[in-house]
């Protein structure tokens, strides 16, 4: 469903390209891990796929359509859902309101459905009272589960995550990996996770390594 076409990116000069002419394909219902050394450009690549930045050369196509044509704001709203290492929740809201806000901003088909949001949070292990307290009072693992629940209640078929387990311990990491697998296999979405943890990479259906400006399957 997502294709990169001769994708290139550099920050200052073309000769310092992080990657050049990347042609990759990502399918719905599959999970993908992207690994590589620190500073190799994984996050940069993800930000392009997430529609947070524009490629320097080449393009990204969603179901055959250039995401630039869709419009990056619209693409972020409808087609892609992002999970960050630092959770990036609305700090002044409860988990429930975080979900409801995301649902209504992205105009999800469940928008306004409080029960659906509550069910999702319950499924991810939050108690009723935790759902209604401020998110900052939750643990890192709980906050990351709220962030993942946020992608699950939104309609976007593409889920990208940058080091989602970076701040989590082993138990939480395993749980989070399971959740991403559920998103791919049960919700039928395409999941792309940037990680440096081999456990995460191994759990995903596919893995690519970014090395020497090129992606290669692992």
């Amino acid at each position, binding site marked *: 469903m997502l294709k990169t076409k001769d994708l290139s990116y550099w920050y200052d000069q073309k000769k310092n390209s992080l990657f050049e002419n990347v042609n990759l394909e990502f399918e719905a219902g599959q999970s993908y891990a992207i690994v590589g050394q620190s500073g190799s450009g994984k996050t940069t690549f993800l930000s392009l796929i997430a529609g947070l930045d524009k490629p320097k050369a080449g393009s990204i196509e969603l179901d055959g359509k250039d995401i630039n044509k869709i419009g990056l704001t*619209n693409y972020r*709203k409808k087609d892609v859902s992002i999970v*960050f290492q630092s959770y990036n929740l*609305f700090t*002044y*809201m409860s988990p429930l309101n975080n979900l409801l806000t995301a649902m209504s901003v992205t105009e999800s088909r469940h928008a306004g459905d409080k029960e659906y949001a509550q069910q999702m949070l319950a499924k991810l292990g939050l108690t009723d009272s935790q759902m209604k307290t401020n998110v900052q009072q939750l643990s890192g693992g709980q906050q990351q589960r709220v962030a993942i629940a946020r992608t699950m209640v939104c309609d976007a078929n593409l889920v990208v995550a940058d080091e989602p387990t970076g701040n989590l311990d082993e138990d939480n990491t395993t749980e989070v990996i399971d959740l991403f697998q559920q998103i791919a296999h049960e919700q039928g979405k395409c999941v792309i996770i940037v990680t440096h943890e081999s456990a995460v990479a191994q759990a995903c259906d596919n893995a690519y390594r970014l090395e020497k400006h090129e992606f290669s399957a692992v």
Partner: protein
Amino acid sequence: MNFLKRAWLSLTAKKGRSVLLILVTSAIMLFVLAGMLIHSAADTATTNAKKSVGATLTLSANRETAFKKMKKSSSSKPKLTTTPIKLSDAKKIASLKNVASYNVTATTSVNAKSFDAISTSTGSAGPGGQSSSSGDIAVTGVTNTSQVSSFEDETNKITKGRGLTSADKNTNNTVIESELAKQDNISVGDTIKVKSTSGSKTYSLKVVGIYKTSSSSTIQQGPGATDPANTIYTSYTFANTVKGSKYANTADSVTFNVSAPSKVSSVKKAGNQVINNSKYTLATNDSSYQTVKSAMNNVKSFADKIVWLVAIAGTIILALIVILMIRERRHEIGVLLSLGESRWKIIGQFFAEMVIVLIVAIGIAGIGGKSVGDRLGDQLVSQQSASSAATISAPGDKSVQMSGKPGGPSGSGSAVQGGGGPSSAGTSGASSQQTDLNVNVSVLNMVELGGFGLAIMFLSTMIASGGILRLQPKKVLID
């Protein structure tokens, strides 16, 4: 609607910040409102002043031509001679459309005979000795005491008996001041005797009423100054009799009451066509209105400056606060952008937050605005009264000095220009109106304040929103 809910959630979650915003905004709104209140109170004061003095015209001798004549005269001792007004001329104006009534004023002075005039330490018997031509009792001959400005503005009030009316024409009825009555044990119904300043004639006057004056200022200044309590009111016919036979059917001034203030200028125009303009002048009697107006214009321009200064400073302050707020909330903005929220809706959320703050602040300002406006207004007015009193006294004095009458017992009584000329009565009336600056919060004020506040909030949010428009979500979110 979603961004409105977010605005509400954000405001209620960050209570400390919201309270701070409300305090700052309330302070700004309070001063804007106070300025607006003072402005509208000054407007009301001006309108009231116009209403109370605007509907009269005064016919008096043309001093300008009299002055020219005096300069031309080759006499070694030039004398200012003005023609008294012929009542037949005054009646021509009285018969014009929209003239409701008129009041004739003739002034003179006499000496007390059967009683003693009140003498004040600074009073009449000055070092130069009393001029033989001025008496100790000022006689103000009128048609109707109720139409005399000092009675209209309640400087003088009838306390016993009655005032004079047109029915008192050709009688020797009089109304005297309560101090004089008390000192000499005179009551309503008594007869008092006065003699002409030349001493040749004695007149009996019947007291029909007693008035109390609140005027503390000596109405007349210069030689022959006498206590205000020594002013007696009679019919103008009596005053003319005292002045001499050639003054029969004349007046020093005639005041016309016009049916409505808006008709004054048309009546003045028509009046000027039926009288001899070299002999007479027909003037609108608005000196106290002009005093109030100029004082209030100063108050208003100061109030406007307050409003604009506070508005500009407030916009800058609020813009800075919003800029800081946006910096602090970059993260939240980044998350919203990553969810695909449009930048304008994010700006809308910030604006909505400011509007909610504004509504609370306007409520607070509405409660506190009246007292701040009252205090600020009093301060402004007291400064204004001080400066306007100074500017007013100069022309006032001049008019008193110039109001000499041809021959006869002039000098003293002349300043009592029945119709309420630009004398001290006018000044005191004006300043009493100034201190009455009536600061009130109206619905219109609040609506205006709301509009002003919205404009300030809109501007400051727009100034600050450049930060939102430039914000790169990637930079904020991935680090």
